């Protein structure tokens, strides 16, 4: 391997890694606030790419139907649980959040799409359509077992991923998509060609992590999320509702995943089931950060991207084997590094 090739592989790896980093940060966000290891984030990213491709092709994406179905389900479950607990006066609020807003989003997207909007608007539409999915899934799937063990939540999360893959095939079909590049700009740096797309990916990753940092440190909502992450009971005593904090975390997380989906779509061909590997590799990065540190997760994810890039140069067939085998030493390191009190397993 010459230094030229190494440089190309390195840059490629950083770009891939930056995409993983966005998903990894979302994963850490959800885990700290809700204790759910949300494996389906990768699917959210892939669905965003598929949504954008459909919009580009002037078709209304399957995401719309998916959101409508999930919104109806979530509303139904919310109504049943409200009736059971006797809080019927909260009904209008539930209808607004779980039914009206998601349906309004789909409606707006449908109307705007007919006007054949420019690329920038299509990007916004894709993100708008994708963000309700994770919060709705949270209501349907995780809220009823919010007090379960991490292991139970993980098992459910893995099952949910498989359900989403099935839904992905149903709503998007088996064809892979690759969207048009967001920019055709490219430049040469120290003799290596760097595409504008690569630069865009890295910049977007930096900007969004920066925004998240500002959100956490300088807004009250951000601080309430951090408080929930540290101590659920304590923050509840301070008037913060963990369920609401969870919803905000899912919204933010899916926004990050959506952005990463948009960024990866012009570089890689995305299929309905591409999300799993994106999600898992981001997850490897998140584990490097111990599932708690945002910078750690970002660095870990970039590391995974670089490793993958070099591994695929050595043996493209075995690159995934290499990446996942590497997870084991990382896990051992993290497990040794984190001193946590032993929890007895639920009987």
């Amino acid at each position: 391997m010459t230094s030229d090739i190494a440089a190309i592989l390195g840059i490629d790896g950083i770009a891939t890694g930056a995409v993983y980093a966005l998903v990894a940060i979302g994963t850490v966000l959800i885990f700290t606030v809700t204790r759910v290891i949300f494996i389906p984030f990768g699917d959210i990213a892939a669905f965003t790419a598929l949504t954008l491709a459909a919009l580009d092709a002037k078709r209304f994406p399957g995401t719309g139907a998916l959101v409508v179905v999930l919104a109806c389900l979530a509303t139904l479950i919310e109504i049943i649980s409200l009736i059971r607990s006797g809080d019927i006066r909260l009904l209008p609020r539930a209808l607004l959040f779980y039914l009206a807003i998601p349906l309004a989003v789909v409606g707006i997207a449908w109307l705007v799409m007919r006007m054949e909007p420019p690329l920038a608007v299509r990007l916004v539409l894709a993100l708008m359509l994708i963000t309700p999915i994770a919060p709705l899934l949270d209501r349907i799937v995780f809220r009823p077992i919010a007090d379960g063990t991490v292991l139970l939540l993980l098992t459910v999360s893995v099952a949910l991923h498989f359900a989403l893959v099935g839904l992905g095939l149903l709503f998007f079909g088996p064809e892979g998509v690759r969207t048009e590049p967001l920019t055709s700009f490219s430049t040469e740096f120290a003799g290596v060609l760097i595409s504008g797309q690569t630069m865009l990916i890295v910049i977007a990753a930096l900007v969004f992590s920066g925004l998240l940092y500002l959100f956490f440190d300088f807004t009250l909502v951000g601080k309430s999320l951090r408080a929930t992450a540290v101590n659920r009971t304590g923050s509840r005593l301070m008037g913060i509702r963990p369920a609401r904090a969870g919803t905000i975390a899912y919204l933010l997380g899916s926004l990050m995943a959506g952005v990463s989906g948009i960024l990866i779509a012009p570089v890689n061909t995305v299929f309905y089931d591409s999300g799993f590997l994106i999600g898992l590799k981001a997850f490897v990065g998140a584990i490097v950060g111990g599932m708690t540190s945002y910078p750690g997760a970002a660095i870990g994810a970039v590391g995974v991207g670089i490793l993958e890039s070099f591994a695929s140069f050595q043996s493209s067939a075995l690159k995934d084997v290499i990446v996942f085998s590497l997870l084991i030493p990382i896990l051992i390191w993290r497990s040794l590094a984190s001193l946590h009190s032993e929890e007895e397993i639920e009987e």
Partner: protein
Amino acid sequence: MTRLHVQLAAAAALACLALAPVVLSPFSITLMNYIGIYSLVAIGLALLTGVGGIVSFGQAAFVGIAAYATAWVSTLNGQSPWLGLLFGVVLTCGVAAILGVVTLRLQGHFLSLSTVAWGLAIGFLFGNVDGLGRFNGISSIPPISLGSFALVSSAQIYYLIWGIVALVLLLGYNLLDSRLGRAMRALRGGNTLVESLGINAFRIKLVTFVIAAFLASLSGWLYAHMSRFISPGPFDASMGIEYLMMTMVGGAGSLLGGVVGAAIVTLLKNSVQDYLPLIAKGASGQLEIVAFSALFILFLQWARRGIVPSIARYLPKIRRERPKPALPLPRRPQPTPGELLLKVDGAERRFGGLVAVNNVSFEVRSGEILAVIGPNGAGKSTMFNCLTGALRVSKGDIVFAGRSIVRDPQSRIAKAGVARTFQHVKLRPRMSLLENVMLGTYSRTSSGLFAGAFRLNRREEASARHEALMQLERVGLGDKPFELAGNLPLGNQRILEIARALAADPALLVLDEPAAGLRRQEKLRLAELLRSLRADHLTILIVEHDMEFVMSLVDRIVVLDFGSKLCEGVPSAIRSDERVQEAYLGGVA
């Protein structure tokens, strides 16, 4: 319900299974074969996940290793499938042992995530290695032959599959009811509990892990030679989830649940395939996995216990006879009364800048009751943890029975004759009183995996059971040995912990705040029990908060304050010591 009833039910089930090929259609038999093959994996997972508390997403990879191994031996190299079985089992168990050694020290969800990692890595390997057919797989695998008789049709291999399942269930239930099985069932109580019984928790986890992999390898072998064709698909990550699903649906703690779960999931999947196209034309493949995952999620939300345990609750309890007298277990040589048993010499323990225990020295002589007392934050619990090996001292030495124990792991200290109880009671609530106390005999008994599975341990089991009953009677809990430990009130749970400790035949009994949370009557009973144990020449060290309880009971007291030893002496001297009064009351009253 007696043992005989259970045996009759098992015999009836076996008869039904044996008659099935006569009654059922060939298609149903094929379905039954798949159920049997999946059952083996699910039974292994029930052991690993339900009993041992290790959630594995990667069992499909083990099935795949064995299937590819036997296909490689029998198809690509033309050898007998039986050689393939041997190769597959050895290879799978070898891989499992290596993975286990590397990952089983991981804690909680880290461990489960590592199973996702190696499950995926191995799964990707099948489709990407040259010489294993890549994604096309390996076809025309020969059938299994018994002599010159080849098991070609589904009815022929049916008897082999279900024979193996029945045998595995029998051996599995034997194992769970043995010394090793009880240790496995204790794993979910946490490492500290298991190690305090003289059990090497890591070794037990490794054995459980390899057993589960072994069962998966049997399944892989049968699968390869039944379907006569293998490709990477059936061994990928989604199949790993499906096995976990089978186990949890059946009831993770129950071996029979593995079979029931495999049957339900397989039949359900089959009917989903049949009926979904009627509801939604053209979308069956996609909807199948969605419907399936949704059912699983609903199941986890509403019925985490699983089917078999839920039904078992309504069955009449099995009536069991009181254990009969048997040969006593060997006893350890007890120290002579008055001899130096434990010597703590300048012990120090730091947490970063905080010195929790600072240069503490004291001695325990055989036959006495010594109390370590002190106000909150005095360093009592840290001292206790150093004594039992849960923490290492930063400086100083602790000598037990003439040997330094500061470098020993907990299980080694327990084996040397230090038995402990816990401030927050650690019992196995779903095991009977008798079984909980039998856990204490672990270090006095020796039968292993094979002796347990094939019931070659009867004499030792009888002795252990008798010993446990004797200890239950000694502490006054001998009237209901088959009651579940979780049903006892707190006072009796503490006493049960003492019985468990006594079953280890300890030289030193260490009690961590035994009076905490007890009512007055319970405290009096506890004090009386401890006095009777002293009369039997047992040495007892109590770490305690409750002054009244300690003063009337113990021979000598060591007082700790802010991590250092304040003073030491007989109760009356301690009571009148001004420094002690100041430490407890903040000044001489």
